[in-house]
């Protein structure tokens, strides 16, 4: 029996900074080797760089992190694409890690891989008690934490953060009304993909008595427009709109995806002067914020800043809005091959 030795190793990891705050699977070499093979890499393969920190990330680091997060080796192909996405400089991993905005990495899994690997895409889709969602999401946050801090050189400065910094992975329904999530980034419908972006926590949008798609989109649009919405000053991030089946049944009767984007872009607006009055617009305005006094202001710079994901359970009339973090404007979408 090695039970007590294993517990001791877990404590040793926890006490020496090899943790996201939760107990980890100790990254024994034999487990890491198995994960490396599943990811299709050799230990010393360079899988990315954190150029500003003079850091080269080798495959064994990602594989060790996957083991620690509790991922199964059968997730290896997905984790390979996810690792490449996480280390894509456009995601600005160090920025996500250290910002006062307290952002997390949102992982969206879409396509046939959702069912192949057993991701939960219905009940509690944004916080599923399911190993695939929980550990893949945790892997992404651990990579953010381990790589983004420059090997312990940088510190996190999130003012309040949000629970997604532990794990934040959403899987889409395999069958959708408007097409797979990744088709919004140019991948074919039949593909499997992981899509990454930095976000704040989700805002719930409740509407149980609306009977038209417009009423549901107005409710969602209003959620984009509260005073506290980070997007008001720069409009550089955008939003992910989560639509579960009951709301989708109403919306899809009247709108396709492009029409829904247009509707929200045109109608979800707030008076600029009122935003300035409560301090949500800088005075004088920042030039690139494109402030037009007296006009209605959208929290979106353009229609492309809003994307839709279809997930969640039937039987409740809730949607959700996930605001993007304003400091990394890019979404990284990787096909799982």
């Amino acid at each position, binding site marked *: 029996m090695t039970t007590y030795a294993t517990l001791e190793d877990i404590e040793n990891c926890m006490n020496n900074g090899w943790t996201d705050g939760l107990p980890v699977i100790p990254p024994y070499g034999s487990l890491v080797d198995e994960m490396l093979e599943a990811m299709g890499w050799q230990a010393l393969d360079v899988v990315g760089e954190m150029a500003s920190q003079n850091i080269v990330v080798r495959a064994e680091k990602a594989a060790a992190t996957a083991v620690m997060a509790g991922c199964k080796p059968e997730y290896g192909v997905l984790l390979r694409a996810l690792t490449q996405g996480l280390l894509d400089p456009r995601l600005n991993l160090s920025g996500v890690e250290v910002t006062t905005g307290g952002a997390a990495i949102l992982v969206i899994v879409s396509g046939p891989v959702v069912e192949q690997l057993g991701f939960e895409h219905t009940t509690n889709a944004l916080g599923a008690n399911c190993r695939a969602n929980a550990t893949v999401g945790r892997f992404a946050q*651990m990579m953010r934490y*381990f790589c983004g801090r420059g090997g312990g050189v940088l510190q996190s400065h999130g003012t309040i953060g949000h629970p997604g910094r532990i794990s934040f992975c959403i899987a889409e329904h395999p069958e959708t009304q408007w097409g797979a999530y990744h088709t919004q980034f140019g991948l074919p419908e039949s593909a499997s993909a992981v899509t990454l972006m930095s976000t704040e926590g989700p805002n719930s949008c409740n509407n149980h008595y609306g009977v038209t798609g417009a009423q549901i989109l107005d409710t969602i649009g209003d959620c984009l427009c509260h005073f506290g919405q980070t997007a008001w000053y720069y409009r550089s991030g955008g939003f992910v709109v989560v639509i579960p089946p009951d709301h989708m049944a109403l919306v899809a009767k009247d709108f396709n995806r492009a029409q829904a984007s247009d509707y929200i872009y045109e109608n979800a607006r707030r008076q600029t002067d009122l935003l300035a009055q409560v301090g949500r617009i800088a005075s004088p305005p920042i030039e690139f914020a494109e402030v037009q006094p007296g006009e209605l202001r959208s929290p979106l710079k353009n229609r492309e800043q809003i994307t839709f994901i279809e997930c969640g359970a039937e039987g409740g009339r809730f949607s959700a809005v996930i605001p993007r973090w304003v400091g990394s404007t890019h979404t990284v979408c990787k096909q799982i091959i």
Partner: protein
Amino acid sequence: MTSRSENRAGVNPPARQLTSCGDVSCELLVDPIPRPTPDPISVTLKPRLARVTFLDHHKPNSKTIMTYAQRILIERGIEVSQEILIKDDASNRMPEAMLQSFAGEGGLVLCGISD
């Protein structure tokens, strides 16, 4: 007023190496944290000037060896500084001003030998 625990993760840099000593054998755990690589160091093998400066660091016999080397170099016609500079303590790095002074020397700096 509250104080932060000095041991919590995120305050101290994470450990670089951990081992497991289970019932079967000792196994190295794979460090998951990538570390910064220092900028490359450039080394000049041939000094720009044929001059030697000595730096002692208070190790036993160091001063004796340096004085001996100084005498031999002078006999061979090599320009050497007469004064043997002294670093206060072998266990501490030299002061920044002294380091900068040596960096601008252009000649060879012979340091005391550690035992």
